[in-house]
């Protein structure tokens, strides 16, 4: 049972489409939750703000109503928000009661749904060997910098990997036949929502992260967050336009890399990207197609 999140239906459509394709190759059918709402993107940290917990809990109620005990997410921010909200009501029955009482038209949330990120599905349920199986276009010479961002590994209570030395994306890259690159900024924040009003913060981070990856020899970055993608793609291009000496480093979603490795780059919607990755990938992979 799959929870897309708003961006995957619109600005990050390539993430969803490549995920659908990659999953089919792995024998996984991602069935979208029938009725869902925006999770809120960020977990509300104020102890008394139950209003902002309603949105993520409502999705869990729908999952429960539709008869599912696990909700899989692709977006790092959705994953983080849903997991933390779930944990909150798991540990605080008074808050759970209040939220259930407020949502009086729906059945009560019984805290029976688990939220898991797609990477956990790959790593823990399938295993990397199975992830390697559908690879048709080995990415032999491709050097990929894993960009973990903030939300996959922090806070520790819900992180799917060690926040200081995460390896899950490195393992994914290896399983697809490419080489992961180590660089200092793999978990440094892209600037997040500062992209709305304080763009200079994001431009600085985009430069730092992409230059760091490039210095370490990376051909491209991968991420599982649409906000990180926007900041390291659109904003990186903006930085490159202001600083012509900057070498743009393309950024892909995790499932786009999978789709390329599995032989079908067309589902990735690369035309939506600000920094064109098609210059990087066909040169390095053996999947020479119409590009």
């Amino acid at each position, binding site marked *: 049972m799959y929870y897309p*999140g*708003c*961006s995957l239906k*619109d*600005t*990050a459509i390539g993430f969803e489409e490549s995920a659908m394709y990659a999953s089919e190759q792995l024998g996984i059918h991602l069935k979208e939750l029938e009725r869902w709402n*925006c999770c*809120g*993107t*960020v977990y*509300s*940290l*104020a*102890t*008394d*703000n139950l209003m*902002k917990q309603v949105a993520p809990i409502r999705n869990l109620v729908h999952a429960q109503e539709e008869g599912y005990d696990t909700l899989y997410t692709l*977006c790092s*921010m959705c994953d983080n928000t849903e997991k933390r909200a779930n944990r909150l009501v798991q540990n605080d029955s008074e808050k759970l009661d209040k939220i259930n009482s407020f949502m009086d038209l729906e059945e009560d949330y019984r805290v029976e749904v688990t939220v898991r990120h797609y990477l956990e599905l790959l790593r823990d349920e399938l295993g990397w060997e199975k992830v390697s199986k559908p690879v048709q276009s080995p990415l032999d010479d491709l050097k990929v910098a894993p960009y973990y961002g*903030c939300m996959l590994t*922090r*806070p*520790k209570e819900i992180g799917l990997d060690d*926040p*200081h030395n995460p390896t899950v994306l490195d393992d994914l890259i290896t399983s697809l036949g490419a080489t992961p690159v180590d660089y200092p900024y793999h*978990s*440094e*924040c892209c*600037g*997040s*929502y*500062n*992209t*709305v*009003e*304080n763009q200079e*913060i994001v431009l*600085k*981070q985009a430069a730092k992260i992409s230059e760091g990856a490039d210095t370490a020899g990376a051909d491209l970055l991968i991420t599982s967050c*649409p*906000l990180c993608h*926007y900041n390291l793609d*659109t904003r990186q291009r903006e930085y490159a336009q202001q600083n012509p000496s900057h070498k743009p480093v393309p950024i892909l979603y995790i499932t786009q890399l999978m789709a390329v490795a599995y032989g079908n780059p067309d589902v990735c919607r690369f035309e939506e990207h600000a920094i064109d990755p098609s210059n990087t990938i066909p040169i390095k992979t053996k999947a020479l197609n119409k590009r």
Partner: protein
Amino acid sequence: MKITNSDQDLVAVVEELSGQNLYACFQCGKCSASCPFTDEMDELPNQVIRRVQIGDKRILSSRSPWVCASCLSCEVECPKGNDIPAIMEAIREINLRRNVDETDLNKLDTDGLPEIALVSNFRKKTG
């Protein structure tokens, strides 16, 4: 700096909103060391906490909580396990609940911004 009883209001409110014991912080500075955005902040994260500890209400007009991207690096580094992002959020909330939004939607140019950026920005910067 003279600390009067009324300054304890700030500590009490921030502690209630954040659910954190502010006096657990012993100013080791690891949070500030890990924060990627200190260049844009007027007060470092550990300084923000210090100001609240001593009841300095001027911290409520600091730019730091608005520059904070809630990346949670500080939380992971804190040796006491303090939820520093929650403390930053508490200061933001004190301002927002006075019906003073940080982001003015009437003046915002949203051209091309993805939903995820707008939703997260509004959640943190509007009440």
